[in-house]
């Protein structure tokens, strides 16, 4: 074990110590070790990467120490920055691998730890430098997108045009089997080792290796189905070939097969190694082949059906969620109405009845007192009416029932204490449930503008375009509205989700606040299909 590894272990230990100490400090957010690990996320990858980098620079101990210490400090105290650095570190590692491979083919004579292998001038493991570099490259690009580091947008835009949109029934791991297959095939048939005969040397081999590694990865990402097909074919052929080698050895000339180097060390133990590897390959091939066949037997129409089924599954999930939310909201609403009626109008009507009853009894003996009681009853019934009116407005605004969405929003604007401009361009008939959802959403936005934003004026635009009903509420208030913070806008979001509607809020500090509500006129729900 090299000195660099010792130092690395020491450093890892101290970082773990620091983490535990920080964890013990009363930190309100991440709870326990899991919380700490989760809070650091992809940033944790910086540690093994730093370990690899330290191992590479093994003989320059000071550099290794600095690398590990920096990585440890970043992961501990700046987890977000660490996560963003991971993809770049991987890309740098890939570049280094490329340079290293070229140096070996040019006659570099030192041993270097690269990734998982100790590469050296005459070791077969040196061949693994390039595939590892390609792997680091691809994973680096992928993480760039995942952690949203700078440059992610570009990668995402390129990938969107290029990645396989139709995954079909092939799992990623099935396509990834192509990597060991290609590695083994290159070892057997590669340009530097044509069944044990040195064909090419130097940079040519490096470039061909790099090309094959890249092509393999490209195929895996571009078309999972074909990558898995090639992997299945390769597994079967190479496995069968391994059995032939094992059966007829040493008649068949020796060469490198997986971990067995029959060319350089033709002992009997190597026979078992080949047989074992060949069996594993055959087993994997026999497992994969029928799955691949099934994928290819699917007619294009079938795969379209599969894609459609996937869409429908997602749709059902969304509908299940929004339906349960809608039911919850409806039940909560009914409970509120029941409570309001029970404590309000009902109680007041009981009071009216009691007052009238008492008045009836007093009518003959004390007309003056009876009259006062009748007055009380009148007062109570008046209050009951006011309360019922407020309740009805909250359930379904009468003006919305009378006049539809446009006029209801105009009436709403008139009742707002803020000067409000309303601009309506809507179809004649908007379905009542959709109209109600939009009405209450706009009401919430208006109430926020008046209450929280201290706006001076508001503009409401109702329009319809491209099959969407759209309401835009703009105020000139203080801004800083956050749908995640309050319950009001979150409730609006839930209400709209039932109709596949969305809420978007732009509210920079200092304003203006723009709330956009969009609901499709024609959705898959029969209830919301007319407008």
């Amino acid at each position, binding site marked *: 074990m090299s000195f660099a590894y010792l130092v690395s272990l020491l450093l890892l230990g101290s970082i773990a110590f620091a983490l535990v100490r920080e964890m013990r400090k009363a930190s309100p957010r991440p709870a326990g070790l899991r919380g700490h690990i989760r809070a650091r996320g992809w940033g944790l990858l910086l540690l093994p990467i730093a370990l690899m980098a330290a191992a590479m620079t093994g003989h320059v101990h000071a550099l290794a120490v600095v690398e590990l210490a920096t990585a440890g400090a970043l992961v501990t105290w700046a987890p977000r920055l660490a996560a963003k650095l991971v993809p770049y570190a991987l890309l740098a590692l890939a570049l280094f691998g490329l340079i290293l491979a070229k140096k070996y083919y040019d006659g570099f004579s030192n041993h270097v730890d690269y990734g998982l292998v100790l590469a050296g001038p005459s070791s077969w493991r040196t061949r693994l430098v390039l595939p590892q570099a390609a792997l680091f490259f691809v994973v680096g690009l992928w993480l760039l997108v995942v952690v949203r580091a700078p440059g992610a947008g570009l990668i995402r835009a390129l990938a969107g045009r290029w990645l396989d949109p139709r995954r079909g029934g092939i799992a990623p791991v099935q396509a990834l089997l192509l990597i060991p297959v290609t590695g083994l095939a290159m070892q057997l048939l590669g340009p530097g080792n044509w069944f044990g005969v040195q064909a090419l040397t130097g940079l040519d081999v490096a470039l061909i290796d790099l090309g094959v590694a890249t092509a393999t990865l490209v195929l895996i990402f571009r078309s999972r189905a074909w990558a898995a097909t090639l992997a299945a074919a390769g597994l079967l052929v190479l496995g069968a070939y391994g059995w032939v080698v094992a059966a007829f050895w040493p008649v068949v000339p020796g060469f490198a097969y997986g971990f067995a180097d029959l060319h350089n060390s033709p002992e009997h133990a190597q026979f078992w190694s080949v047989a074992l590897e060949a069996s594993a390959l055959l087993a994997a091939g026999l497992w994969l082949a029928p799955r691949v066949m099934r994928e290819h037997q699917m007619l294009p129409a079938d795969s379209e059906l599969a894609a459609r089924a996937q869409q429908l599954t997602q749709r059902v999930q969304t509908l299940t969620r929004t339906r349960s939310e809608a039911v919850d909201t409806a039940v909560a609403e009914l409970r509120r109405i029941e409570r309001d009626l029970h404590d309000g109008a009902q109680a007041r009507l009981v009071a009216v009845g009691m007052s009238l009853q008492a008045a009836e009894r007093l009518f003959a003996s004390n007309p003056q007192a009876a009259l006062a009681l009748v007055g009380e009853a*009148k007062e109570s019934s008046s209050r009951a009416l006011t309360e019922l009116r407020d309740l009805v407005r909250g359930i379904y605004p009468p*003006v919305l029932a*009378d*006049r539809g969405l446009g006029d209801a929003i105009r*009436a709403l604007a*008139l009742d707002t*204490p803020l000067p409000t401009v309303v601009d309506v361009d809507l179809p004649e008939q908007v379905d009542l449930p959709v109209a109600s959802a939009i009405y209450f959403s706009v009401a919430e936005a208006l109430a926020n503008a008046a209450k929280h934003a201290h706006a001076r004026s508001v503009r409401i635009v109702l329009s319809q375009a491209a099959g969407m009903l759209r309401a835009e509420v703009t105020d000139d208030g203080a801004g800083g509205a956050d749908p995640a913070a309050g319950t009001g806008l979150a409730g609006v979001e839930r209400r709209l989700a039932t109709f596949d509607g969305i809420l978007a809020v732009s509210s920079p500090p200092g304003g203006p606040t723009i709330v956009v509500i969009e609901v499709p006129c024609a959705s898959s729900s029969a209830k919301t299909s007319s407008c």
Partner: protein
Amino acid sequence: MRIVIGEDLFLLREGLVRLLTAHGFEVVAAVASAPELLRALVEERPDVGIVDVRLPPTHTDDGLRAALQARGQVPGLPVLVLSQYVEQLYARELLADQAGAVGYLLKDRVFNDDQFTGAIRTVAAGGTVLDPEVVQKLMVRHSRTEPVARLTPREREVLGLMAEGRSNAAIAQRLFITEKAVSKHAAGIFGKLGLEPSDDDNRRVLAVLAYLGSC
């Protein structure tokens, strides 16, 4: 005084007929739907039509529409609109023709005989009666903006009562001040709002409402 009633709920219709008859009004027609109401209003030409906003056949604002249509055919036909709820939007539509002789009240106001019969007489005489709830919303909207913000609290009170359609005498009675004091406040209000002063009660109400409803 001849009255036409448009109200679809039997209990309320009969209650109104009984109440108005008891106060010496003559109910010439009591109908239950918007088309009947329109016909009765145009044919009977009552002194006041008392109209429920929500009527058959669609049970939306058919009553209001019938009333507006009747006033279209018979300009200035006095109409008192009753409703379970009041909307500024509907108040604006009723006031839009500037002809006066319009009332818009919550149904609860019927509880107060004097106030209700007073409103019927005001409308019959070409005046305007607006529910306090509508006026309150109008005032809230203007309370923060110039020049209404410059009015004294007392002047604002008087402005609100003027907007409801009350005469100087009624305002004086309500606020326990003399009619002269009311006139002085009114002059102050009209001066601050930049409105033409007027002795005619109806004209004054319309001017105030036009001002408050203008934004």
